[in-house]
């Protein structure tokens, strides 16, 4: 136990150890120590650090600690990758406006389509062990985004431009599923309208994402830094008021 207490005593500030180290060591030598004493020394060292550190040092240390903890948490969380593809849909003639009714619903957001994709590619294995397929389908739906980036107008001949995005923890799977979604969208149109009035053009194939979109590690680190800064300011304030009021 004496050895542990001596080790813990190294946590005291060096200036304190220089002044009291020898006599403290003599006390440790003379005393029959318990586990409680090692915690007592640890707590004493911590308080001594707080009283010897100045306001700025406490604040800065807490801010850096907060940032490091948040960064570590962000690395512990599963990454999510976003694959994107661009799709341009051009009507055969000026009189045709917009896509067939419910094309997106039928070909991409259709529950049967999504269920078959989930099962065929063994998507969301962990979620499937915990929740029914319906819940997993809803989750997959939330990971799909179809965003109109250029709406049809008389000026562009009624051409529609979309971005189709799929987010998944595996970047290769994200790309593969995005390809499937795109194919199903085009095929869905052909099935709905065999003599299709629309031309589908894919200028940008589903991308293989290089970097995760989530968790946003920069944002995590910034939030950690800010939280640490606030905690540091509070702690420094408490330490300052305690040192001025404690005998």
């Amino acid at each position, binding site marked *: 136990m004496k050895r542990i207490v001596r080790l813990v005593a190294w946590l005291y500030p060096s200036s304190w150890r220089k002044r009291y180290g020898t006599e*403290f060591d003599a006390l440790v030598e003379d005393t029959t120590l318990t586990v409680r004493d090692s915690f*007592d020394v640890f707590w*004493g060292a911590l*308080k001594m650090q707080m009283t010897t550190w100045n306001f700025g040092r406490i604040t800065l240390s807490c801010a850096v600690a907060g940032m490091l903890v948040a960064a570590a948490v962000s690395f512990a969380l599963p990454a999510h990758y976003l694959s994107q593809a661009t799709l341009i849909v051009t009507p055969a003639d000026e009189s045709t406006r917009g896509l067939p009714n419910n094309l997106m619903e039928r070909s991409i957001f259709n529950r049967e389509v999504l269920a078959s994709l989930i099962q065929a590619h063994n998507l969301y294995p962990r979620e499937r062990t915990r929740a029914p397929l319906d819940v997993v389908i809803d989750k997959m739906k939330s990971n799909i985004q179809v965003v109109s980036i250029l709406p049809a107008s008389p000026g562009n001949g009624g051409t529609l431009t979309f971005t189709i995005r799929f987010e998944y923890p595996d970047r290769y799977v994200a790309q593969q599923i995005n390809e499937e979604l795109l194919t199903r969208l085009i095929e869905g149109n052909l099935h709905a309208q065999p003599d299709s009035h629309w031309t589908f053009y894919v200028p940008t194939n589903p991308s293989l994402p290089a970097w995760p979109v989530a968790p946003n590690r920069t944002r995590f680190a910034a939030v950690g830094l800010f939280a640490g800064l606030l905690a540091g300011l509070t702690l420094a304030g408490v330490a300052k008021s305690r040192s001025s009021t*404690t005998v």
Partner: protein
Amino acid sequence: MSDPTLLVLSSLAGGDKHGYAMMEDIERFAGVRLGPGTLYGAITRLEQRGWIRPVNSKDRRQPYTITGAGREHLHDQLASLGRVVRTGLRRLENA
């Protein structure tokens, strides 16, 4: 009473002592065992306030003595504590 600084001052009021002797003395008269961290936290604060000071010694065990200011502070604190004790006891008797 468990304020370590008052316990250390009370111990030193009875004569100069090093850390271990203070621990033993405090345990004897107050029934409180101060851990090494608590004891040296109190010693550090008291020395910073000028209420105790180290006595010249060649031993690794550094003895301390209470200063005039320390005696004055201890006297004030104990007098204040005494008033609380007397009031509390009186009220208990009258209750």
